[in-house]
């Protein structure tokens, strides 16, 4: 049966309005009268497999390989049920293609003035964000170092810092063996801490006028040493052992904690700002 009537079933590719349609148009918009699209669609064998449906669908789009197409055309020629399916699917796609485009209700062009210029804003914000983030981080690091160095006065933080115990050994009554224990950190701290704390970074050469020059300078390097190199305990303790006489003298200065705290706050604020900007900016 196939050959004579068959060409009508060939895939028609992208048929547009007005293009030639296969012999028996199932739906035709141009014809009036309901019969034009009402008929021919009733009975259908709905039990095609998914793979057959896919074959038919690809056949409509001319997307089968030669072998697949030849094979399918052979089946179509022999199977009216399959052919009816194809015709209905073709009719469906034809209807979809004939669906007239909807004219847009307005123009969607962007207004040049308020339109955000993406690139510059984007880069600037990135730069600022990165800059303030890094600055904040640097400040926090600085403050941390400062706090570590001056650990004794910052009682709560002392145990975490390596140099702290070494310095602390100085403070108690001179019995170095017992003082290595961290438990007596809080008790020992106040007086010597303030004296040593201010020395390393604020004014290394002559921190306190009240303290005797000789002993104070010996104490300062010792603490500076201990702050910088945390590992070597022997030299530090040795230096510290000479210090005790001096340490009692300087009265606790109230202000050494201030710069570190301020630096830390500032640094945290900058980091917070950098993070917040990310959300504000979008």
């Amino acid at each position: 049966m196939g050959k004579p009537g068959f060409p009508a079933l060939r895939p028609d590719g992208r048929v547009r309005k007005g293009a030639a349609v296969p012999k028996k148009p199932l739906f035709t918009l141009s014809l009036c009268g309901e019969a034009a699209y009402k008929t021919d669609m009733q009975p259908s064998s709905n039990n095609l497999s998914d793979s057959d449906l896919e074959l038919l669908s690809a056949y409509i789009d001319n997307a089968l390989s030669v072998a697949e197409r030849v094979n399918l055309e052979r089946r179509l020629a022999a199977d009216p049920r399959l052919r009816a399916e194809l015709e209905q699917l073709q009719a469906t796609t034809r209807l979809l293609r004939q669906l007239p485009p909807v004219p847009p209700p307005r123009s969607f062009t962007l207004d040049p003035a308020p339109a955000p210029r993406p690139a510059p804003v984007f880069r600037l914000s990135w730069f600022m964000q990165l800059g303030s983030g890094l600055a904040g981080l640097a400040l926090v690091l600085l403050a941390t170092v400062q706090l570590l160095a001056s650990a004794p006065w910052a009682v709560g933080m002392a145990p975490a810092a390596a140099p702290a115990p070494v310095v602390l050994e100085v403070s108690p009554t001179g019995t170095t063996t017992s003082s290595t224990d961290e438990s007596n950190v809080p008790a020992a701290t106040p007086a010597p801490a303030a004296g040593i704390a201010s020395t390393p970074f604020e004014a290394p050469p002559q921190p306190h006028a009240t303290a005797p020059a000789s002993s104070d300078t010996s104490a300062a390097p010792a603490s500076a040493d201990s702050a910088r190199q945390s590992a070597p305990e022997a030299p530090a303790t040795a230096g510290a052992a000479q210090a005790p006489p001096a340490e009692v003298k300087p009265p606790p200065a109230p202000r050494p904690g201030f710069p570190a705290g301020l630096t830390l706050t500032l640094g945290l604020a900058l980091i917070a700002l950098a993070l917040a900007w990310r959300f504000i900016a979008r």
Partner: protein
Amino acid sequence: MASEEARLVEAGQRGDVEAFNQLVRLYEARVYNLCYRMLGDADAAADVTQETFIAAYRNLPRFRGGVFRAWLLRIATNACHDTLRARKRRPAVSLDAAQESESGPLSYLADTTEAPDETALRRELARAIEQGLAQLPDDQRVVVILSDVQGLAYEEIAEITGANLGTVKSRLSRGRARLRDFLRAGELLPSKFRHDDE
């Protein structure tokens, strides 16, 4: 043509709004139609279309070659999916939207040179197809629209939807079959669409 488009894209990447607007004029009808067919609602389609172009302009610096149209339609498709998802959370909106297509948006189909019943038929048919499209699952609908309404090739559809070719083909065939079933049922009782489709 393609090189002109590439030039406009490049200018747009440098922040040239006017160049970008030329791209908008080139593609706004296509984007709007895609959104309209996806959402079945003129107002929502206009909103999503505008959203699409704004997002495209913002993200243009990140566009690295390829087919601009596919890139743009991908943004539009994603925006439509977002809107549909939001709608599912608030079902009342989708009911309104389905009703809306009955009057306004279809008025463009009226053609004064046609006989009245011809116009009526055409409108009814278009409405039937729209309703058929509306009842397809979202992932099938987008593929059917891109392929059969907009006439794009499988490869570009795969790029737009982010699915592979096999998935595109199977969604298309299932979508077409389902639409065929819908139309076939409707053809018997054309006036019953509204009661049947829920």
